């Protein structure tokens, strides 16, 4: 059932209930008032009859007493026998037991009883029929009016709800039209900042975020595909050239060696790419394990020793037996990437230092790792850029595709931490990364 139908039905139901309740109250009230009025008239009649009896000493009803104001009177003697009655009085032979509303001979009447000083009993009453009729008339009127009111409110509610919900239908249609291909479109924001306006605005902000994300993914994909193609082209060309009868055996050997190098380069690139994609995918949860800091740094140093030796750079790390909770694999990879980067840029004969400390920020321990080198440093304007995938600084060395720092950043951010680079006093760069444990 649509909201519109529900609203219309709710309106109609509310009106129906209101009319019902009010109607009942009015109906009851009317009955009570009319009966009270009737009772008063009956009592007045009794009073009139009694005063006439006292004054006239006639011992009976006067002519003028008979059937005045629709109230009949019956006089009973002290012994309970019926003496006289006005016209219209019912065939009552005995004094009724109680006064009030009763049924006498099939007629609904309001009866009052009074005993005179002389021992007679005056019974007066009036027909309750008219009262019932009045109530019935009211009920009929209310019923009719009520039905009309319910109908009108139902239809009116339907129409009003339609008007109010029309913008929703428009928005739904607009939103449905915004497809993947057309992510620049936005919903029209109505001028008023009511619920619908707020909804439209919120949806548009969400679309902005999605658009940014899709844009980033596309850029990433473009960069990745571009960076894969050049090594592929080199490999393909190499092999094509080798497949030539004019080629000598040594040339063939050389070509195969080069092709192997290209293939290895491609494999590394592909692996880095996959690593980065996996790191950036928010679905991959962290696997935090208790880690001794020096275990981590020693492992990194061990792994990068061959690279350092080839570059004639010395790596050193401080020793810390602090215990932290991290995703060991990713943290090691991030630090490893920073160190590899440092080794590549450090001048021959210089050293790369790894410094660690555990600080406390808002009751969480945070592992801070600094990697220092004496290389050319990173220019101020590039310090944000180099952490983007495929971005290499202007002074970048090494043959990497520019994914190491991006992967490191992804790892840091997955831990809720940060990464950055600063100038090192005395020359070089200080790359720092923080892992909240």
């Amino acid at each position, binding site marked *: 059932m649509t909201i519109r139908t529900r609203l219309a039905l709710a309106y109609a139901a509310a009106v129906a209930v209101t009319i019902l309740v009010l109607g009942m109250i009015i109906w009851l009230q009317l009955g009570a008032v009319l009966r009270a009025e009737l009772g008063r008239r009956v009592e007045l009649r009794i009073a009139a009859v009694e005063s006439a009896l006292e004054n006239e000493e006639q011992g009976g009803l006067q002519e003028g007493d008979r059937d005045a104001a629709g109230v009949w009177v019956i006089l009973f003697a002290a012994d309970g026998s019926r003496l006289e009655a006005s016209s219209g009085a019912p065939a009552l032979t005995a004094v009724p037991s109680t006064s009030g509303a009763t049924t006498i001979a099939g007629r609904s009447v309001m009866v009052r009883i009074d005993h005179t000083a002389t021992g007679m009993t005056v019974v007066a009453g009036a027909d309750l029929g008219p009262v019932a009729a009045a109530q019935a008339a009211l009920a009929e009127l209310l019923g009719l009016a009520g039905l009309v009111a319910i109908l009108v409110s139902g239809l009116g509610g339907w129409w009003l709800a339609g008007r109010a919900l029309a913008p929703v239908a428009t928005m739904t249609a607009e939103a449905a039209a915004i497809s993947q291909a057309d992510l620049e479109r936005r919903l029209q924001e109505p001028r008023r900042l009511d619920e619908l306006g707020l909804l439209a605005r919120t949806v548009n902000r969400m679309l902005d975020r999605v658009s940014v994300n899709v844009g980033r993914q596309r850029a990433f994909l473009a960069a990745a*595909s*571009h960076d894969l*193609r050049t090594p592929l*082209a*080199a*490999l393909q060309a190499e092999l094509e*050239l080798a497949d030539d009868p004019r080629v000598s055996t040594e040339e063939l050997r050389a070509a195969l060696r080069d092709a192997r190098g290209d293939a290895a380069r491609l494999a590394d690139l592909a692996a880095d790419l996959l690593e980065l994609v996996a790191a950036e995918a928010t679905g991959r949860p962290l696997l935090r394990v208790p880690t001794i800091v020096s275990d981590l740094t020693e492992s990194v140093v061990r792994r990068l020793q061959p690279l350092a030796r080839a570059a004639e750079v010395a790596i050193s790390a401080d020793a810390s037996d602090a215990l932290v909770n991290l995703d060991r694999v990713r943290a090691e990879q991030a630090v490893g990437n920073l160190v590899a980067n440092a080794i590549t840029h450090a001048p021959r004969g210089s050293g790369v230092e790894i410094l660690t400390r555990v600080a406390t920020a808002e009751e969480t321990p945070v592992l801070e790792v600094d990697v220092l080198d004496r290389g050319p440093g990173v220019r101020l304007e590039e310090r944000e850029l180099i952490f983007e995938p495929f971005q290499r600084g*202007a002074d970048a060395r090494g043959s990497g595709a520019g994914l190491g720092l991006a992967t490191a950043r992804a790892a840091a951010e997955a831990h809720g931490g940060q990464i950055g680079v600063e100038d090192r006093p005395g020359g070089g760069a200080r790359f720092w990364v923080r892992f909240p444990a």
Partner: protein
Amino acid sequence: MKVLVLEDDVRLSAVILRGLRREGYAADHAATIEDGRWMATESTYDAMIFDVVLPDGDGYALCAELRAAGRWTPVLFLTARGAVEDRVRGLDVGGDDYLVKPFAFAELLARLRALARRGAVERPVRLNLGDLELDPVAHRAVAGDRALSLTAREFALLEFFMRQPDTVLSRSTILEQVWDWAFDGSPRIIDVYVRTLREQLGSGADRPRIETIRGAGYVLRPPSPIRAARSR
């Protein structure tokens, strides 16, 4: 045959150079736009192979620069950027061919040969005559500082004139080249179009004009007194 290879990837350029030299080409290598620009202006090549994404700039810009400087050596873009927009851009900026990586070496060689056959003919992207400039890529014509508002056919006719300035073109030639086979009307339609073009062109000291040569046809005269010379 002398070829310039502008490519920053060390391995790939090594392979290309080796392959070209084996085929008997004289091949030079530049790894940056700066070096490429210097070499392209210092030597004469039969063809140039340009990568697009280089560390200090973009291959398209270099090609446009060379064309603007009047260097018409055929350029083949060899790049990983293979999207349609990139290819269109490469060709519209004055490039002659476009090959996407990874590529077959045999194809690279075949395309180089085709380019060499075409030679370094002056073939500017934008046509200029006096203060009239026509840009077929953007489909814009500007006379002085006023943009002309032309229909597709009017533009095509003006382009036809501008490609053969100071040359008398007969009605039948114009009809044949600017209208297609299906056209069945009278050659008089050319007169109508020429009238419109004249109105649009207006006049000016530096403005070419369409002259009627009775019995022969029409000719687009460069602005006098610089009749034969072309500016820019």
